[in-house]
């Protein structure tokens, strides 16, 4: 490990490292940011939900969107896997089905960033995944 010789070095280093622990801070205040829950049961993983999740996490970061991506159990819409629930602050949660990378891209760009509605919404008969328990 090299020495941190100047203040600028320290700042650069901090910026670089921040993402490593950012998650821990963000998760303390999920209500302030976009929350994305990816269903991650065995059935979902089989249909590629892990790839979807990885894609979403990386893309959000690249596009500077403050969001928390968590995983959750099977939402029960196995026909539409991978499924993803998105909660934008101040709005009701919405569940999307068949979320592959392309779909995910669309959700981020259109729904999350611009508030436009995107196709593929699964009709809601519940309020939030957590509360179904």
């Amino acid at each position, binding site marked *: 490990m090299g*020495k941190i*010789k100047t203040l600028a070095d320290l700042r650069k280093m901090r910026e670089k490292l921040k*993402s490593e622990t950012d998650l821990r801070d963000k998760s303390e205040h999920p209500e302030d940011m976009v929350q994305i829950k990816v*269903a991650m049961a065995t059935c979902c993983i089989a249909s590629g939900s892990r790839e979807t999740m*990885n894609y979403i*996490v990386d893309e959000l970061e690249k596009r500077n969107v403050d969001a928390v991506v968590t995983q*959750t*159990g099977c939402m029960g819409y196995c026909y539409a896997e991978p499924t993803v629930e998105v909660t934008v602050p101040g709005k009701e949660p919405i569940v999307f089905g068949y979320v592959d990378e392309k779909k995910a891209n669309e959700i981020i760009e259109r729904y999350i960033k611009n508030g436009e509605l995107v196709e593929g919404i699964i009709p809601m008969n519940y309020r939030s995944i957590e509360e179904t328990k």
Partner: protein
Amino acid sequence: MSGYKIHLLVCGGTGCKASLSTAVVENLNHEIKTQGLDDFAQVVTTGCFGFCEKGPIVKIIPDNTFYVQVKPEDAREIVEEHIVKGRKVERLLYHDPDKETIVSDSKHMNFYKKQVRIALRNCGVIDPENIDEYIARDGYKALGKVLSEKTPEEAIKLIKDSGLRGRGGGGFSTGMKWELAAKNISDEKYVVCNADEGDPGAFMDRSILEGDPHTVVEAMAICGYSIGSNYGLVYIRAEYPLAIERLKTAIKQARDYGLLGNNILGTGFKFDIELRYGAGAFVCGEETALIHSMEGSRGEPTMKPPFPSDSGYLGKPTTVNNVETFANIPVIINKGAAWFSSIGSEKAKGTKVFALAGKINNVGLIEVPMGITLREVIFEIGGGIKNGKKFKAVQTGGPSGGCLTEKHLDTPIDYDNLIAAGSMMGSGGMVVMDEDDCMVDVAKFFLDFTVEESCGKCAPCRIGNKRLHEILEKITKGNGTPEDITRLINLGTVIKDTSLCGLGQSSPNPVLATINNFMDEYTAHIEDKKCPAGVCKALMKYEIVDENCVGCTACARACPVGAITGERKEIHHIDTSLCIKCGACIDRCKFNAVIIK
């Protein structure tokens, strides 16, 4: 970029380690590997989460799931269920005893709701052995800021303006302390971190050192810059091996990064830190005693003045602050004096870390804003009294403090209010007592501690505390007289009035406070020869209830001194003059025929 989508934070504090949290980490790592999730999920050993009652704690980020009392064998289920399938392991979640509900994240737990974490900001969040994680969370930013943007005078003024007061007990303004040392002109000055936390039942400093050692390193360097010192010493209890290790690691990492040593951050400022070990003497928490101990002598306090800021370590100007005080410094520098002083009460700014212990549901480490009430701390954060018993008192300030009772529950906690209530802030130990605790016995317990820990230098403390203890012993044996109370009060007052250092000046507090608040218990011991809480053995009487006794002779056979007589199938009898109150008969009797009166 950031490789890990999921972080599993596992508490690596002393308490959780004692409950095998190291094995939990190992097993989690193993399971993650088995599942092939190495680049997806990361296990981080962090410092104390504070909720020691329910340790070991495992926290899953980002969904903020808070698992309690996790055993090594639970690792598999956590990984298979939660990490792989995203299903929370319900049986490991916290059960709120009040509402009988399950709370999955710490945010919604009463234990955490009212807490404000400044000194503990990184505890339970970062890996204390990884300087990068500290830097990521604004670590060493404050040092950089002070070195580049502020003169030492400005730095001191900022600390002064924040209203930060010493968290080790005295409550002296930290900024003023720095100013006094800064004003002295000397070829060498020293920054000392007092980590000789000796109060029984207090573990605030240990947790900070274990969970966030870099904050202390950074703060000491800031202090060094402010007062004009290039040399820091941490006086740490030898009984804290984990804290020592982590601090050593932190110092080494800081040196490797050039954040300690010569020409720090290219500013020309030079600072380094060394460790000195305590060796088991409570009195060394007193700053002059601590300095003598660091110089290799008996840890006997000396008269102040001269204060360490004028003549301290090796006779040079020295600033002594405790761990928690230091832990506040970087945040104050980063967020400003106004921000800090907006937290807390009128007279006491910021937060205070307390170690909650004793007969309370949620034993652990908490950080709350000054001015919070005891009721909030004990009943909301602490979850009330264990086993539904009745609250009797809370002991604050360790052996130097006093007992606070029911009537103090709504007093806002700050330095002055606690003193007014006959106790003190101390370093932050809070031991809760319930109806089963005898307050005379508790006073005796603390005196026993001071007698053992008195350095012996001044007569009132050396002999006086011994005599106080003897009188309490006499009372708990049932030989007390009303004059003993007068004697306790007069003796206690004089010891406080004449002792050399803070130890003796406060050692009679537990006695005086319990006499003040629980005179009825003293009277019961003295007049009625009874211990209402049933603690003082000498005042207990074992009796056999005739109706319940079947004459099985079990008790008589169990009695080690032959105090129980009676023929088979006839009612037995205890000769109280022979009885040594060992309790063997109660244990043996299957018919609840032996009772304690």
